[in-house]
């Protein structure tokens, strides 16, 4: 029963929860990674809903939901960019969960005998991991902001790292 609700109402649940994340970012003046990931999660859920509403239902090709596949692929690109550059840990989990989701789509496309339940589990449940990671990440960010104040949102680029190591380096004027 619970499983059915989690599987069938995923997009609705995600729209509501990711909208709450976005609202949480407002008063906390959250940093760029939090904003970006909250927006991506919201857009994924909202995009899926809009896509299915526009297409009049799920677009199925070789038993895989192509609409979800396209939205998830775009989301993965955004998540990877944030995960590779953010000064945070939780984006790694969010990106990893997205990879699992895409793996589910891929298996469904490539393997005809994969069960519908297994596909649903692989394609849907990682998104709940993303919501949990996002919630924990926002909480940790808020705690850090309170305890140490402003801190870098992004990891230092190699150019800045080299510059800070070379104390005699004179930058252009």
């Amino acid at each position, binding site marked *: 029963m619970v499983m059915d609700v989690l599987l069938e109402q995923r997009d609705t649940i995600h729209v509501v929860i990711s909208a709450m994340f976005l609202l949480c970012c407002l008063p906390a*003046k959250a*940093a*760029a990674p939090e904003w970006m990931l909250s927006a991506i999660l919201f857009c994924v859920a909202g995009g899926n809903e809009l896509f299915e509403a526009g297409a009049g239902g799920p677009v199925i090709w070789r038993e895989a939901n192509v609409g979800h596949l396209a939205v998830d692929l775009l989301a993965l690109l955004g998540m*990877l960019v944030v*995960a*590779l550059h953010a*000064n*945070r*840990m939780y984006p*790694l*989990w969010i*990106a*990893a*969960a997205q*990879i*699992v989701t895409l*793996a589910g789509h891929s298996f469904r496309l490539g393997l005809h005998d994969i069960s519908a339940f*297994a596909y649903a*589990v*692989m394609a849907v*449940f*990682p998104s709940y*991991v993303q919501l949990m990671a996002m919630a924990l990440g926002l909480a940790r960010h808020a705690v*850090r902001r309170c305890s*140490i*104040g*402003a*801190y*870098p*949102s*992004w*990891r*230092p680029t*190699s150019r*800045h*790292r080299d*510059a*800070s*190591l*070379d*104390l*005699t*380096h*004179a*930058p*252009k*004027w």
Partner: protein
Amino acid sequence: MKDSGIEGDEKPGSREHGHFEVFCSLTDKQRQVLHHVAENRTTKEIAHALGISESAVNQRIEGVRGRTGSPPRSELARSYRLYLQQETPTSSVASRPAPSPPEETSSAAPLVQEDGAVAPPRVNSSPEFGRNGTVQSLGHRVVPKALDGPNAGLTRVAAITAIAVGMLLVAMVGLGVVRALTQLF
């Protein structure tokens, strides 16, 4: 850029001491810019980080250089780093930004006021300032060192892959256990 004559006969120590006196009386805006200069950022980068024009950045730097005898920018940066290093434990100005060298400790350390009380670290709430890694927050490590080093991109991709594989394994084991339990009962 012209190099001034203060690098003549004066000993470096006394020259820097003169700079330190100037640094004590800087305005907040000049201090913000010098933080970035101390990190060897270019004018363009500083302007982007602080959300001001490049000419405004140059104006503030020139204001400091004019008072310190127009040293080269690299020397100004080095002097300010030294100033931050030396002033950290004995700062007597409550409004002074929490100083820290880029390579060492967090500058979010508390400040010691004149009456001996410890003031909380000064926090710049400007999102631009924080996003670009101000001196005050460079020492705080959020991610493990392996994910923040020179090969951070590769290690992060490896970590993402490992987490994804781990999730799949956990899901497979979990489903296997559920299936086994279902068959049992």
